[in-house]
């Protein structure tokens, strides 16, 4: 009963997030602040291990002492928080988009080891969530100057990402899957923090520049690269 309730909650939340991510329906929010808020919420939601990692560990029987300690993120698979913070906004979005593309592909691989319907449902929800998030990244990239061509909206069908290196060993495969998911949740946590910093810098710039208001529409102004890193397009003066 409780699991069913949780599934329903998750499903409704995902649907809500997807509904918010209007790019999936062909249009983007042009309100930077609102879009940033959505991305923050989505990242915060996706960082929870209950979305993917915890069920995976349970399904694969990795929840044993001496075994779950090895379900740790392998360095280098996902960008660290420091790396993400050092990136420009456009680069950050680009990296985020690419990484999530890989995650989607990897989830499809993991799906082969999860054939039980209720567990597949969770996995599919997570995939839908990532697709929605990627679409919002695309929309955010459109609001930032000079990055429109770099991130594309996520197609709703299965992607054509290259297959990962096959691991014939089932044990090693599930351990790697566990590590991957661990890294994924950590990565989303870092992403959420970066987005939060974006919001804080927005507040600071607002305080320092009271005349600057949020303007809707796609007004493009040439700025220095430094300013480009700081200011979203929606905030640029006329």
């Amino acid at each position, binding site marked *: 009963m409780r699991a069913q309730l949780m599934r329903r909650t998750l499903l409704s939340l995902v649907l809500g997030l997807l509904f918010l991510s209007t790019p999936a329906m062909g249009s983007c929010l042009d309100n930077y602040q609102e879009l940033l808020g959505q991305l923050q919420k989505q990242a915060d939601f996706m960082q929870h291990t209950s979305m993917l990692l915890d069920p995976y560990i349970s399904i694969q*029987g990795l929840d044993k002492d*001496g075994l779950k300690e090895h379900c740790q993120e392998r360095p280098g698979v996902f960008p660290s928080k420091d790396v993400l913070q050092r990136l420009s906004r456009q680069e950050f979005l680009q990296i985020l988009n690419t990484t999530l593309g890989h995650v989607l592909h990897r989830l499809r691989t993991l799906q082969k*080891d999860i*054939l*039980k319907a209720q567990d597949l449902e969770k996995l599919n929800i997570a995939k839908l969530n990532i697709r929605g998030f990627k679409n919002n990244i695309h929309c955010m990239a459109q609001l930032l100057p000079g990055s429109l061509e770099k991130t594309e909206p996520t197609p709703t069908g299965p992607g054509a990402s290259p297959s990962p290196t096959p691991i014939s060993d089932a*044990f090693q495969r599930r351990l790697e899957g566990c590590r991957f998911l661990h890294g994924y949740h950590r990565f989303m946590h870092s992403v959420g923090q970066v987005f939060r910093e974006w919001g804080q810098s927005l507040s600071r710039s607002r305080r320092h520049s009271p005349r600057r208001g949020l303007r809707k529409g796609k007004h493009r102004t040439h700025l220095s690269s430094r300013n480009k890193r700081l200011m979203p397009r929606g905030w640029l003066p006329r």
Partner: protein
Amino acid sequence: MALFSAFQTTFLLALLSLKTYQSEVLSEPLSLAPESLEVSIDSARQCLHLQWSVHNLAYHQELKMVFQIEISRIKTSNVIWVENYSTTVKRNQVLRWNWESKLPLECAKHSVRMRGAVDDAQVPELRFWSNWTSWEEVDVQSSLGHDPLFVFPKDKLVEEGSNVTICYVSRSHQNNISCYLEGVRMHGEQLDPNVCVFHLKNVPFIRETGTNIYCKADQGDVIKGIVLFVSKVFEEPKDFSCETRDLKTLNCTWAPGSDAGLLTQLSQSYTLFESFSGKKTLCKHKSWCNWQVSPDSQEMYNFTLTAENYLRKRSVHLLFNLTHRVHPMAPFNVFVKNVSATNATMTWKVHSIGNYSTLLCQIELYGEGKVIQKQNVSVKVNGKHLMKKLEPSTEYAAQVRCANAHHFWKWSEWTRRNFTTAEAAPSEAPDVWRNVKSVQGHCVVTLFWKPLSKLQANGKILFYNVVLENLDRPSTLKLLSIPAPANGTELTLDRCSYQIHVTANNSVGTSPASVIAVSGDPGNKEVEEERVKGTEDGFCLSWKPQPGDVTGYVVEWCERPGDPLCDLQWKNLGPNTTSTVVSSDAFRPGVRYNFRIYGISTERIPYLLEKKTGYSQELVPSDNPQVLMSNLTSYSFTLSWKDYAAESQPGFVRGYSLYLKSKAARCLPGSEKAVLSDDSICCKYKIDNPKQKTFVVENLQPASFYEFFLTPYTSVGEGPQGAFTKVTTPDEYSHILIRIILPMIFSILLIMILCYLKSQWMKEKCYPDIPDPYKSSVLSLIKSKENPRLTIMNVKDCIPDAIEVINKQEGTRKSLTETEPTKPTYLYLLPTEKSHSGPGPCICFENFTYNQAASDSVSCGHVPVTPKAQPSQLGLLTSSENVPKALGKNYVNSLGEIPAGETNLNYVSQLASPMCGDKSSLPTNPPEPALCSEYKTQMAIPMGLASPPSITLLDEGEHDH
């Protein structure tokens, strides 16, 4: 010597021939040794695949050979397996042999060698082994790579309960390796310094994703493991069965066993094999498979269903005759024809199941959801069945199914049709009853009839015909047609002698008539009403059998007695019946139902026999009577509740209970102690007669407080608890007080009033007051004269009513005699009405000292006032306070001149004349005393003082002395 030579020659020849033969034969076994031995491994299956060949066989030669194979582990001397493998060998044929190792092949180095021998009966003399081949070594470890740790076997799939051997291969000698099965450490056997083996016995099914077995080094982050996929035991198919519906296709079905319980694709396959035809088909579905019946009239079939997965193969068999497994198709072209009121014909067709086969068909007829007819019919192709004894105008459902008549296997599905029979004339007369009233000389007859049941109506009733036959004039008939669904009508007849015929009509015909007669004699003779007790099953009514011809009885009652419409009900009973039970769902507890029992004469005239009344369930009274109290005495009072309607209570009132509360500890005679619902104790009088509506409570104590409460009771209990009425009995003597003492008091008071009113008159008449001079206040003045000092007359002792102001010249002193009569001026101090302006009706007794002169000069004894008085001073005298004071001062001056001892008092009873100024009439004509006569104290004044007093009005300062 020749013999020796011959023997030697023969021996040599024989030896030579033997050697030649030997050289020919023995050279063959030597060339039949296994050659080109190759060993490969299948890690997943833990198998060693051996393949070799025997080269030196003659062309087309086939020999049975046996190959002995030895397998050693770790070192060649450690042979762990020896097996002889027999087979037929052809020239250059590649021979194969597999060996499955319990131990994963990666765990240890294996070596294989073999040798062969001819095992053919054709050349039994050659049955000896060839030489061993060289050891073929299989060393998988060398190709594992450089990882520090390996665990084997990888992803092994076993069945639940199997035994599995696991090993790890460590590249480091330094680390201690620990291995775990689902977190539980395993203890193994060291195969060599780098390899440890674990034997798992009877492995359980843990989860669908497999069992995790892993090994870790004590140091470092090295962890390696395997997933052991343990499946549940593969079960064999159940309920395997085959049948045909058209003799062309066999449909075989089964129930597959439980799921293997693995997420990995442990696929199962099902194969159907028929042994007589040798045909085989791979089933596409997990639980059924179709098989095409061969056209060569094969009757017997022997099927083998094989279910197989990676680990196991299961088979079930089924042998049957095709004609015994015919499951016919459902009948088609099913019709219900020739439907009349009571009959209908059902026709259908069946699918042929052979040229000469006969089907047994079953027909069921449903009416109102139940099977009412069931029939079996043999059918070749066309079926037909006549359904009889049907009810008119009734819905039916008929269904048919068929099976093989000779070898029953299964019924076909039902084919169902609904139909409705035709209508017929109503079969029964309507049940009619009447209610007769006489209104303004006319007879108002209300006819009631019950709708016919479905079986009786035989169709939809369209109208009711009512024929009125006047019994006085038999030729006079009157017809009324009442459309359905009316269940009655009202008739107003000039006379009450009628016979009424009622019939029900549908589209087909008319029912028999129901006859009832209405007599001019209402027959409502007074019949005693009896009480009847109802039960859950209803009212059990009985009556005395009537002598004479009675065609039947009718019991009549109202289901809603309080309703004006009353919902009249009746029950017809036979002539031999003298009791019945009337039951109805409409009967409610606490409602009184009245029953009337009628006898029906041969002329169909009902006459009242008995009346019954009762409750299906009695309840306690719903309300209490309004009790009036009267005749309250010191010892009793009377209660009455004559307005109480006992008949409207939800039960027969059996009597009344009177509760009396008093301070007395004991109950009065006729009562007993009772405990009320509030646990208070009182006395209870029981009045058993329900008709008694008054009660006298006696033997009470005077001047005592009582409370009473009256409630009726039925067989169930008493009425609701109500409030007690308070009453206090009067005192025993209070009536005497009321009847005697009060009138006396009244009389005395009346007398007293009368006496008072007449007392003055009596006093005047009988004993008028004589003034007592010694009691005069003047005496006090005289006594004060004895004091040498001036005596002051206190004005307070005199109450003047007027002051006479006299003008007097200063210095002139005249005697009283010389004093000319002057017209005095009066100041009226007392509010004597009308006396100021002229003579009034008052009689004044002034207390002036009598002075003739003064009396002559001063009318009516008014005090002469000195003319010295200034107007201003007079003004002051208008104040009632100042007047006595002023007078007092004047008296002081005057009295001071009177010498002591010269006082001579004359007393005259003065009576003021009505005409105060008329002096002459005083002595001669004493006036009649007036009601308002006043007696005033007289003051005796010495003669010397009779001169007009000189009154000096003091100013205010002097007045204060």
